[in-house]
């Protein structure tokens, strides 16, 4: 379900641009923020707000890699594997992440915690190798740093799990 508030923001965006459909990309971001991915409901909400057909919105959503077609993990890890990171040894780090997270690149862990992706040059070649966790950069990666990161994520999920266990009313992210 896309909230009325989100739909209102989409309509405001449509008015901000010279032509309403120019707001399709920001509107898709708004919808994705609500559902975690671009669901059927998301496509319908954007189409309605911008007076487009659902197929038309979908044609845009499927072109750009940052709109997810299915629910991603809570932590989306994107590791750059373009030339500058390659020269600085990113391949070994990707394999290390695959081992630690128990998934291959392109996969989401069955518990829904992690999605591991390789991505094109992230404009961080001076601090290569580099990855992003939910759009935040981690630069100058080393095997030790990758290990510490995974430990830290695991600890975060553990605390989250415990606090949810104590107060079930607070769970579910509402």
């Amino acid at each position, binding site marked *: 379900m896309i909230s009325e508030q989100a739909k209102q923001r989409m309509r405001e965006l449509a008015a901000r641009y*010279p*032509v309403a459909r120019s707001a399709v*990309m920001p509107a898709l971001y708004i919808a994705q923020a609500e559902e975690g991915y671009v669901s059927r409901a998301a496509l319908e909400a954007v189409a309605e707000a911008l007076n487009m057909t659902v197929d038309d919105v979908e044609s845009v959503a499927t*072109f*750009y890699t*940052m*709109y997810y077609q299915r629910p991603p993990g809570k932590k989306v890890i994107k590791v750059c594997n373009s030339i500058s990171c390659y020269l*600085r040894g990113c391949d070994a780090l990707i394999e290390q992440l695959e081992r630690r997270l128990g998934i291959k690149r392109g996969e989401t862990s069955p518990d829904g915690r992690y999605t591991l992706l390789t991505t094109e040059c992230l*404009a961080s070649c*001076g601090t290569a190798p580099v990855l992003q966790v939910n759009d935040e950069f981690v630069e100058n990666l080393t095997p030790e740093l990758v290990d510490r990161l995974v430990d830290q994520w695991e600890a975060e999920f553990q605390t989250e799990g415990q606090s949810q266990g104590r107060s079930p009313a607070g769970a579910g992210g509402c």
Partner: protein
Amino acid sequence: MPELIITKHLDVPGIDRLDVYRQYGGYEALEKALREYQPEEIVELVKKSGLRGRGGAGFPTGMKWGFLAKNEPRYLCCNCDESEPGTFKDRMLMEKNPHQLVEGVILTSYACRVSTAFIYVRGELAYAARQVQRAVDEAYAAGYIGKNILGSGYSLDVIVHRGAGAYICGEESALMESLEGRRGYPRLKPPFPAAVGLYGGPTVINNCETLSTVPAIVRNGADWYASFGTEKSKGTRIFCLSGHVKKPGNYELPLGTPLRTLIYDEQYGGGILGDKKLKAVIPGGSSTFILGADKVDTPLDFESVAAAGSMLGSGGVIVMHEDTCIVDAVLRMTEFYRDESCGKCTPCREGTYWLVQLLERIEHGHGKMSDIDLLLDICDNISGKSFCPLGDAATSSITSSIKLFREEYEYHVREGCCMVGPKARKPAAAAL
């Protein structure tokens, strides 16, 4: 260290905030322009400064502005869709000094009589987009953007637009398609954006670094800017140094500085990682031709790099040392173009897949000798025959590497393994 222009105040704490930016002379150029100059005079000023586009093509900026058709409304698109492998300057400019960019956008909009400007920020650069959005918001609040700016009668609207993961949107016509809310497919040219661009109106499209340079030119004058650099390549630019160097990073240098200085000088690259031998350099992002180590004394200006057989491109200087397997490196770059080909035209869509297949086969020891010439043949059928420059770009590293390192390709075919690098056979085994 030579005088800095674009990165001069980059490390001032708080320069990303309006008050600090103003303490360092921020928005003085805009005030001066609105007070003293007619729009056409700024176009002339930038023409005279010799500023050339920093996105890749190096087209003279003022001349581009001068081409705009007279009808209205006109639009400005600032291309901050930085995605060229090896390039990381625009991200830094947006994150650290976003007001400089915003001031450049306003000045350019005034010079070109634009009423709506867009700043198209690459989707992956979320923090950069937030920084630019905040700068735009602050500029609106201070009256630098909006209706009747500083009482001049000039009005401007600025919209920050985020991409969503597509290299092709850095191509100017694909960027406009994306801004219009469509898939980022390039358009046929002509008509050029200056005549028929965004929403069918005359449109000027400039790179982030180019527009970040405009305030300094307006403040200090065309002659001052033209005093840096060489006769035909004026000013400074940011070189993004990456790969096998001791100190990778962004370095602003006058155009014409020798490549050797950038790579080896202690103030910049500090030499090759592990003090190994230099093998090759890509001077302007992965879309430009690879240069051999013998070209290390090439001055980094548009003309000299072209004479050496490549392009200054986006300023992404990628350094490779002697232990780099050129076939594997080229394969990695070609995979990028395969993944980022938009699929609109056949030579690029099919050709890049085929190139990757052949390179994989050679790299993994299953190649045939004829594959090397087949690669060149496919490159010839993509380059100049695809819809937009992405196709040409996909072939640069292949054709130049076969020219420079053909024996390495042949070695892969003959011996079934790499000639150098971690996957090369040990000397004892090779002797068997």
